[in-house]
């Protein structure tokens, strides 16, 4: 978990949290509470997701749908064209891998996904009219993290929505991705392989967040 030794409890309450992004956010500063809203939905909630996922959408899996309370959750997202998100911005891979590693080390349930051509975009005409397609979105139930990622990526659009289930939130339309090789690749190392994002797509099987 968070290193308690290095943290001092904050001397005063956090200042009022502006922005819609925080409206539903939890008491993130106390590690104990971190688990509450998110963790109440067990990890393997992904039944039906397989059809939903773009591109590489036929990885299989059979999640056990949890009989869970179905209260809507807020999903925060950043979106841009897939070329930017998955090709030009390839270094983003390191960050997602780091986060996944961190969740595994701390036994934390996964709450972030890359979604290619997400269906939820239909609800955002103001976004879609400014978006090159195919698009790729970074989705998370952690509004703070999405705010942080917006700071990092900058060239992305940000918004949020409520969904009854994670399947609904992460549903996507199949699409073929195809990135042209960069004309000049001057880096002294090879580019990350096409498809580096696959581990970050919504899991289609029960190994999802285990």
């Amino acid at each position: 978990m968070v290193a308690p030794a290095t943290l001092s409890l904050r001397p005063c309450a956090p200042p009022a949290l502006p922005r819609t992004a925080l409206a539903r956010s939890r008491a993130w500063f106390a590690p104990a509470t971190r688990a509450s809203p998110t963790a109440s939905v067990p990890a393997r909630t992904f039944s039906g997701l397989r059809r939903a996922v773009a591109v590489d959408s036929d990885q299989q899996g059979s999640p056990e749908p949890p009989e869970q309370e179905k209260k809507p959750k807020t999903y925060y997202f950043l979106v841009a064209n897939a070329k930017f998100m998955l090709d030009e911005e390839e270094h983003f891979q390191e960050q997602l891998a780091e986060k996944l590693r961190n969740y595994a080390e701390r036994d934390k349930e996964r709450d972030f996904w890359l979604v290619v051509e997400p269906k939820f975009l239909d609800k955002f005409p103001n976004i879609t009219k400014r978006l090159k397609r195919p698009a790729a979105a970074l989705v998370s139930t952690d509004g703070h993290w999405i705010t942080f990622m917006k700071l990092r990526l900058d060239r992305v659009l940000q918004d949020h929505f409520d969904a009854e289930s994670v399947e609904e939130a992460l549903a996507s339309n199949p699409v073929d991705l195809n990135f042209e090789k960069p004309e000049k690749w001057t880096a002294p190392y090879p580019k990350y392989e096409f498809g580096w994002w696959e581990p970050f797509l919504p899991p289609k099987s029960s190994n999802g967040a285990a």
Partner: protein
Amino acid sequence: MASSAMELSLLNPAAMRHHRGVSAKPSAGLPLARRSVVRFRVSASAATTTAPAKPSGGPKKQGKKEIQETLLTPRFYTTDFDEMERLFNAEINKQLNQAEFDALLQEFKTDYNQTHFVRNPEFKAAADKMEGPLRQIFVEFLERSCTAEFSGFLLYKELGRRLKKTNPVVAEIFSLMSRDEARHAGFLNKGLSDFNLALDLGFLTKARKYTFFKPKFIFYATYLSEKIGYWRYITIFRHLKANPEYQVYPIFKYFENWCQDENRHGDFFSALLKAQPQFLNDWKAKLWSRFFCLSVYVTMYLNDCQRTAFYEGIGLDTKEFDMHVIIETNRTTARIFPAVLDVENPEFKRKLDRMVEINQKIIAIGESDDIPLVKNLKRIPLVAGLVSEIIAAYLMPPIESGSVDFAEFEPQLVY
């Protein structure tokens, strides 16, 4: 006012090697600081005070011998803390985007690298295998890196302390960043113990002069040095991953996770800059942005071109490596600075290469047997040449840039 001293150190990198008194004026420092430079004392490992160096480093091949003078000492920085307090007082500054700072704080608290910096026996074995010039160059690399990280630690630690009352969130982030820097510096210092050396960080803290830098310059310079640090580390990491035969010392294997810290630190300065739009939105901000980009890139290029043996030792072409790092850093920086340099224009690299040539001549004069007066006279035309190259690079048509959060054309952007 900072500019004169800055230019000096920029223009005269060779001369800096022989001056250890750094002027009290603001100077190009921070960009240098993270990565570099200037002489410092190295003592046998047991002498370390603050670094958790292993006392085990028994054998003393190098003993107490001081490292030779060509090492440039890193400068340590201080700033106007009262101004910092005003800048981050939420009651005075309504621009503070608390959501961004809260998000950053959560990210830093996560402490991704809490258990990352664990050594193994490979280190000592690799160090023992290194001999001759390569060994020397590695020691220098470790010292410079350690001192640079440590310099970040000192500055962030103090800012964390000073801002506690006015802005506890910003203060805590600074403290957590100093945690990262201390960890990095400690890890590098343990690396030095493989070579039976250790930096005496306690001594450095007391003995070094602190260079003053206005907050605004701290933001630009530190942003750049964190981001350029990320690009340097990740480039080395990925290169060595693809070419493991050059993996001569295991520390590079830690770089991938390590440099994510640097990247996050840069993000924090990005948020600090956004909270101070006056540092981003006028013509002066654009001139400063270009100036800092140029001083950081040129300093790195000239420094690295004096140490090609290190980069070649790990299988990199120094100039290619540097240009890649410069181009990527510039692209990243364009997401926040209002203007950046057109570094992808081939003319930019040609200018850098000419600066390297001139700089090498200046260094050669310093190493010649001439009397000081003659040396200085010989330097004049060369320094003038270097100055004019730098000015020409500065005046190349810049690229307008900045965060889309501020861009007036944002509504027309297609993402």
